[in-house]
């Protein structure tokens, strides 16, 4: 039963988790291997699967985040099972520079802990409570980081927003 639930959840979340990685790694195609690693880790930890479906989704994002953190500290593994997805991502045309570049740069200049809350909420579409669970911090801490991040971003982007 656990295997069936995990298979269903991975099938439902795979695209979102791939997008999570695509938004954070360079080159883009590394997202394929990080997704593969996330899936393999999830299967190996299937016994830890939460009982509720929404909890499973948050759990998978938590696994993804840990995979990303560990990958930054070492050379990224290549998984053969990611070959096809990596190929597809490598052939995606880079989008033209847009006004979002300045905001993305400003987010990147934030303290990493603040930046990640902003990305989880505004890029990945998660609530603050969900972001807190994925980051493994209290909800109040997530709210505090989010407020600080927005204040710093408003100040940094004020001249641009006034245009």
């Amino acid at each position, binding site marked *: 039963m656990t295997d069936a639930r995990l298979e269903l959840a991975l099938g439902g979340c795979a695209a979102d988790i*791939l*997008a999570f990685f695509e938004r954070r790694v360079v080159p883009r195609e590394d997202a394929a291997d990080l*997704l593969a690693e996330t*899936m393999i880790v999830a*299967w190996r930890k299937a016994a830890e699967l939460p009982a509720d479906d929404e909890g499973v989704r948050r759990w998978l994002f938590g696994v993804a985040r840990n995979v990303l953190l560990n990958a930054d500290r070492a050379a990224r593994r290549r998984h053969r*099972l990611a070959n096809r997805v990596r190929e597809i991502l490598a052939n995606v045309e880079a989008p033209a520079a847009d006004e979002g570049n300045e905001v*993305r740069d400003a987010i990147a200049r934030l303290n990493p802990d603040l930046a990640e809350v902003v990305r989880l909420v*505004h890029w990945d579409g998660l609530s603050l409570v969900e972001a807190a669970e994925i980051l493994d911090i209290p909800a109040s801490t997530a709210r505090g980081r989010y407020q600080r991040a927005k204040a710093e971003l408003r100040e940094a982007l004020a001249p641009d927003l006034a245009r």
Partner: protein
Amino acid sequence: MTPLDPAKDSFEEALERSTPHVTSGAEIDQELALMVARARLAAHRRPRSWGHRVAIVGAIIALAAGGATAAAATGVWSPWAQNPDVIYTYRLPSGAWCEVRRGNVMAYGRPEVEAAIEDILRNGDIFARADIDAAIAELRADESWFIGDGSNPTPSEFGTDYYNADDEYRLAVDRAVAAVLLADLEERFPDAAALEFSWEGEGHCPGATFGYDQ
């Protein structure tokens, strides 16, 4: 440019518009579905039994068969299936004929295993040696099948109203062929039980009506 949402200020809008572009579409969705099944295989380094291994490979085959629906609809095989390692045909209980192609073998870090599997598929007369009756008996004895969503599943196994004989036969053929492959690998490799590999299968069965089409 998308008009500003009056319910949000320009700052909130700017944050959301900064979302980086991501890849989407039918091609990547299909590859992601295959990756889910292959990751399960990659994660289970030491299967408990051959039966377990066959079940995992069966999952890969079943997901790959999702691609067969597209192939059947358009009459076009996936790129790898245009040069498969083996092709075999069989008749379903409904009378429809299936052509199945197998290939795109990957054995993680073991090129000699990959070569062996390709040899077995190309030269091993794998379909002729498949014990389909035994696979059907195993399915009926060991498995419970359901259709519908996870919150409200409906039994569809042998003996129920939603039983589909073509589905059962197709799955039994896949499992029986996989069992032949695994038995041959056991003869060639002392560590066969720990091997990690994946292979793809695609079927084209014009006129068949499978349960998952309902």
